[in-house]
C-alpha cells in the first residue's frame, strides 16, 4: 500500500495541529501562565498595598517597565518570611549574586516600538494592557497584544495613530 495507516495517522495529527493552531490557539484571548523560577504572587503583594511602581520603578523613565533588582526583593524579604520555600530560593539567588531568570509573559515583536514611559505619563493604568495582575497569583496575558488592541485605544484617547512614527520604525 502506498499510504500505510500510520502515515495517515501522522497526516491527520499534523492537520489537526494546524487546524487547532489556526482556529483556536492563535486567537485565544490569553496564553497559559508560564511557570516562574520563583512562584511569585502579585496578588499577595497587591493585597499588602504595594504599588506596581514600587517594584517596576523604571516604568515612567524608560521604555521598559523594569524588573526589581534582587536587592530590592531582599530589602523586605531579608526579614519577611525568610524561611518560606520560595523566599529561600530568592535568598539563594542573592547569595550567589545571580539574577532571577523570570520568564517573559508580555511580549511584542521587535518591529513594534512600545515605550512604557509615554503611556504612563499619559495616565494609562497598568491594568489596561496587563490585566488585573493584582488578583493573579501567576501572571498571564489577558489582553491579546495585537494591532487592533493598540489602535482601538490610541483612537479612543486621541493618541497618535501614525503607523510609522508612532510604532513601526
Amino acid at each position: 500500500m502506498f499510504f500505510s495507516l500510520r502515515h495517515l495517522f501522522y497526516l491527520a495529527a499534523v492537520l489537526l495541529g494546524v487546524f487547532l493552531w489556526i482556529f483556536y490557539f492563535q486567537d485565544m484571548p490569553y496564553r497559559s501562565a508560564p511557570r516562574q523560577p520563583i512562584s511569585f504572587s502579585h496578588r499577595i503583594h497587591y493585597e499588602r498595598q504595594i504599588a506596581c511602581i514600587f517594584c517596576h520603578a523604571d516604568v515612567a523613565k524608560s521604555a521598559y517597565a523594569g524588573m526589581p533588582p534582587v536587592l530590592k526583593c531582599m530589602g523586605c524579604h531579608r526579614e519577611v518570611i525568610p524561611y518560606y520555600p520560595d523566599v529561600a530560593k530568592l535568598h539563594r539567588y542573592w547569595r550567589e549574586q545571580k539574577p532571577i531568570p523570570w520568564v517573559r509573559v508580555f511580549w511584542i515583536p521587535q518591529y513594534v516600538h512600545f515605550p512604557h514611559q509615554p503611556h504612563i505619563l499619559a495616565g494609562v493604568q497598568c491594568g489596561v494592557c496587563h490585566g488585573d495582575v493584582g488578583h493573579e497569583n501567576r501572571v498571564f496575558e489577558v489582553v491579546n497584544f495585537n494591532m487592533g488592541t493598540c489602535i482601538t485605544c490610541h483612537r479612543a484617547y486621541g493618541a497618535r495613530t501614525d503607523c510609522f512614527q508612532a510604532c513601526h520604525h
Partner: protein
Amino acid sequence: MPDDPRSPFDELVQIRNAGGAPLDRRDFLKAGGAAAAGGALAGCRTTGHILPLVVPDNRYIPGVPQHYATVCRECPAGCGMHIRVNDARPTKPEGNPRHPLNRGKLCMRGQSAVQGLYNPDRFPQPMRRDQHGRLVVTTWPEALAMLQQQMRQVALAGRQADVVWLGRLETGTLDQLLRDWLAAFGYPAPLYYEAFAYEAVREANRVSFGQDVVPYYRFDRAKMVVGFGAEFLQTWVSNVQFATDWAMGHSYGHTHDPAYFINIGPRVTMTGANADEHWQLRPGTEALLAMALAERVAFHAGQTLHLPAGVPPGLGMSQSAAAERTEIPADVVDTAAQRLARNRPSLLLPVGYGNLNAAALTANLVLNAVNAMLGNIGATILLHHPHALSGAARARDVAAVFERAHGGQVPLLFLHHANPVFNFPAAATVPAALSKIPFIVSFGWWRDETTKYAHLVLPDNYPLESWGDYAPIPGLTGILQPGRRPVFDTRPTPDVLLWLAAQAGPAVQGPILHRIEMPPVAALPADVAPVGSNWQQSPSLPNPTPLTYDPPAAIHSFDAYLRRAWQLRLAPNAPPAEQAAAWRNLLMAGVHLTTEAEPAVATEPPPGRLGPPINETLPTTTLEGPNGDPPPLPLEAEFEGSGDFYLTSFPVVQFFDGRQANRSWMQEIADPLSKLVWDSWVQIHPDTGWRLHAAEGSILRLETPYGHGEWPVHLDSFIRPDTLGIPIGQGHRDFGMFATDVGEAPQRLWTPRLDAAGGPIPMGVKVKVTNTGKTRPMANLQLEHWQRDKRIAQACLISQAGTPAVRDKEPRATFYAFHPTPVHRWGMAVDLSSCIGCNACQAACYAENNVPVMGRSSCLSYREMTWLRIETYAGDAWHPPTTMNPDIRFLPMPCQQCGNAPCEYVCPVFAAYHTDEGLNAQIYNRCIGTRYCSNNCIYKVRRFNWYTPMWPKPLDQQLNPAVTVRSKGVMEKCTFCVQRIEQAELTAKAQDRPLRDGEIQTACMQTCPTEAIVFGDLKDPNSRVSQLHQQDRGYRLFWEENTFPAVTYLKRTKFVLNGLAGQPNPEPPL
C-alpha cells in the same frame, strides 16, 4: 592573487545566497553561525527570560542608553568620544563635544570603533604556538607562566638590554608605566611604531627650528593653504580637527572670506579634491617646485629666505627651466607666490605620505623656510604644541630592530598593536627577521600579519573596554573608560604588566609603584590577579560581586594605578573624598585641559592673541645623517628601477595604514573618489589605459626591482599619465574575515631603503607595467561621475554666492493638495561648500540604523544597503573639469523625504506613505517586497534586502535596539533617524516644553566634521534649517519633477568655474 578577490566573509555570503547547500563541515559551521545570528533576529514568537539587576545602579536605568566619555584610539589623533551604551552594549560612538580637538565630531574610522570591539576575529582567550606552529588556545595562568619563564631565561642569560617592546603610540600614564616597567626589568625604552610617523616632517623641523616634532597646524587661521599632497582631511596627523578648522577657514558656509587652497601632487587625493587649484607635479620634483615657489615668494614679499645649511642655496637654474622640470608653468607659480606674499598668515604643508621620495626632506626644509619668512610659525604652525606623533619611532629605528633580529640578537619581542609586517615594504623581509626571534609575545586584539609570528598571545582589552588616557598634545589629555565588561576572555595589557612586576618581587615592583607613591605589595596568584577591577564602573548585566579595593591590592590593576596617578595630579594633598570627586568629574568630562594646550585648540582665538611670530628666536641647527655626515639633499629625487611609471601609494580615509581593513563598514563604504568597494586597484589615466590596452578591470602586472603584484585598473583622469596610484590598506593576507585576500598591498613594490630622515619612501621606485590580459569585475558603486547637465551637484562663484544671481528655478505649482503637516515638517540642508566627501556621515548611518553589509558579490550587482551615499561628480556640462581645477563635488544623498513622493503612490500595501510630520515612511513589517517604490524613486535611495542580512557574532551585539532589524524581502530607506526624532519628542513632552531647534541630531549631522549637514523643523521659520533653505545658494534636487524634497542643497562655491572652450575664464582675485 585570485581573479575574484573574495574575503572569507564573501564565501559566507555566497553560501547564504545559494540557500546554504551543499555544505562541507567547515562551511556548515560557518553557515551555522550565520543562521544563528539570522534566527535570533528573525523575530519569531519566543518568550525568553527577563534578567533583573542583582544590585541596582543609580547611574543606570535599563532601556535608557548611557553615554560614557572616552577616547577614540583608532588612530593616533586622539579625538574625544562619547560611546552610547544600550543595556551594557556599546552601540554607537559619537564625538565628545567637550573635547577641544574634534568638538563632537568623528571620522568614519572612529565611527567603526564598535566594529573593532565586536570584531568576529578577535582572540577569544590567550593563545600559544604548539609544536606544529599553530596558534592554539590556552588559559591565562598557563600563558602568564610561559611568559614569566621566558623573561626569567632572558634575565639568566643577562640579555635584558636586547629585549624589544614594539607597540603602537602611547602617551600619558600608560607611556609612563611602560617606561617604568621596562626599566624595572632592565629592558630598553619602548619603540612606538606608527606607519605614518612623519619622519621627513620631524627631521625638517629639527634641522630648521631645532625641534624634532610634528607641530600642530591651525587651518582656521590660514588665509591660504598650499599642500604638497598632505592628506590632512583624511589621515594626516589629526584629520577631524583639521577638517573642522579647514571648513571654518575655507568653506563659504562658515566664512565669507574663504582661504585659497592649492594642492600639489601627481594625483588628486580626497583632500586635493577640495582644493581650489591642483598642480599636477612631476613626481620627484617637489623640492624643485618648493624652491621655485620660495624664490618667487621672497621676491614678491621683498624678504630674504634663510635656508638651513646643506640645502642648495637656490634653484641653480632659471624659473622657466625649473618649470620644464616640474611641469608647472612659471606664471602659475608666480601667481601663487603673489597670493602667498599678500595673504598672511598662510600655511605651506609638508609633503604627504603618498608623495614621499628622496627629495621630500629637501622640500620640507624649503617649505619651513618659506613658512618662517611669511610669519606662519607661531601663527598657523605651532611648534611648541607638538603632536603626540612626535614620540613615534622612526622607521629607521624599527628597521634596526629587525636588522638585529636577523643576527639573532633579539631574545624577546613584545608586540603591542603594531603590524610592521604589513606596513613595512615587503622587500624589507620583516617576516624573516621575526622568525629568528626565539620568543615573541603579542598583546594583539586579533590575528594579523605580525601576530601570526607570535609564540604567545595575551589578548588586550579593546580601548572601549579599557581604562587609560591619551594626550594628543601637551596639556590636553583625554581619559579612556570602558563602555562594557570585556566581550572575550581578555585582560588589559597594563594589568598584565603590573601583575608580572608584582610577581617579580619588590625590587622590580618598587620603582613602578613609587611613581604613584605606593609601597610594593604582595603578589597575587595568576588566576585572580589582573581581572575584575576595570569593570567596576562599567554598566554590567548582571553585576559582578561588588568589588571593594583597599589601595595596595588595587595596584594589581591599571584602573587603580590610573586613578591614583590622576588623583595625585588633580588634587595631590586633598582628602580622599575630594580626590575621588575630582576623578569622577574628570571621567564625566572625558578630557583634561590645561592652559598649556589652549593656543593649539581654542576654536576662535581673538586676533593677535599669540603675540608676535616667534620665528626669529628659533635656533637653526645643521643637518646630520645617521653617521654624522650630512646626507645629500637633492633638489630632484632619483628613482630606482627601469620602468616607465612613477608610483604613488596613497592612504585612504577608510583604512588609515591598513589597521581598519577588517571591518565590514570600511570595506563596503565606497572610497570617496573611485567609489570602489571590497578591492584595491591601480588608478591610471585613461590615456595610459589606451596605451596599455587596459580598460576598467583589466589586470595589470606591476614590477619593480623589489617585487611585483597584480592590480585591476581603475581609470580616472585625475592622475598624471606617467603615474600609477595604488591605495594603501588593502591586501592583507592574514587579517580576519573581512580583509583577508581582498586586493593587494602596494608595499610589495616599495623600496626597502629609507630616506635621509629615516622614513619609508613609498614613491621611490619606477614601475614596469604589463597587461596580463585578464580582467575582473570591479565593484563600483557609482559608475557615472559626469553629470551630463543633470544639475545634481551644482556650484557657483564665490563672488556671486550671496546674490540672487545664483538662485535656482523654483518648483512649478501643483494643483494637488499637499500632505498636511500640522506640527512639524522635518527637513535638511546640506552645504556642498563644506562637504569634503569624508564618508563620516555614511559610517554613522551604518552604526545608528543597523544597515546591513552585503559583501562584494552583492555590491557587484549594486545591491549595497547604504541609506546615505556620497555621490562624487567632476564638474558639470557647462563647467568641465580640468587638471588645474578638477572641480570635484561631493553630494551626500539621503532620502529626500519628498513632499510629493513618487514612492508613496505605487505601494500596493500602504507600506510607503507620508507621515504627518512630512517623512516618507517605510513600514518594514507591512512591506511585501514588490520594489515598485524603488523603481519609482528618482533619487534611488531605497534599498531592498535581497538576502537575509548577516552579522557574524559578536557583531550582532552592536545593533541599535531602537531600530528594527530588517530581513529578507523588505525595502528599507533613510528615515531621518526617526528613532531620534521620536525620542526627542518624547523627552520634550515629558518635560512639558516645546522641541528646541537643534535638539534632534540625525546621526549624519551629528558626526559631520565640517557641519555641512543641518537638520530641523521647516515649519519653524526661525530654525537654522529654515534659514538655510532661504539662502540664495539653495536648490532642490530634480525640482523639475515636482517632488518637493525636504532636503535643500547649498551650491558648492568656487573661486573659478571652468568655462567652455572659447569662453573667458574669470580670474580669481589675488
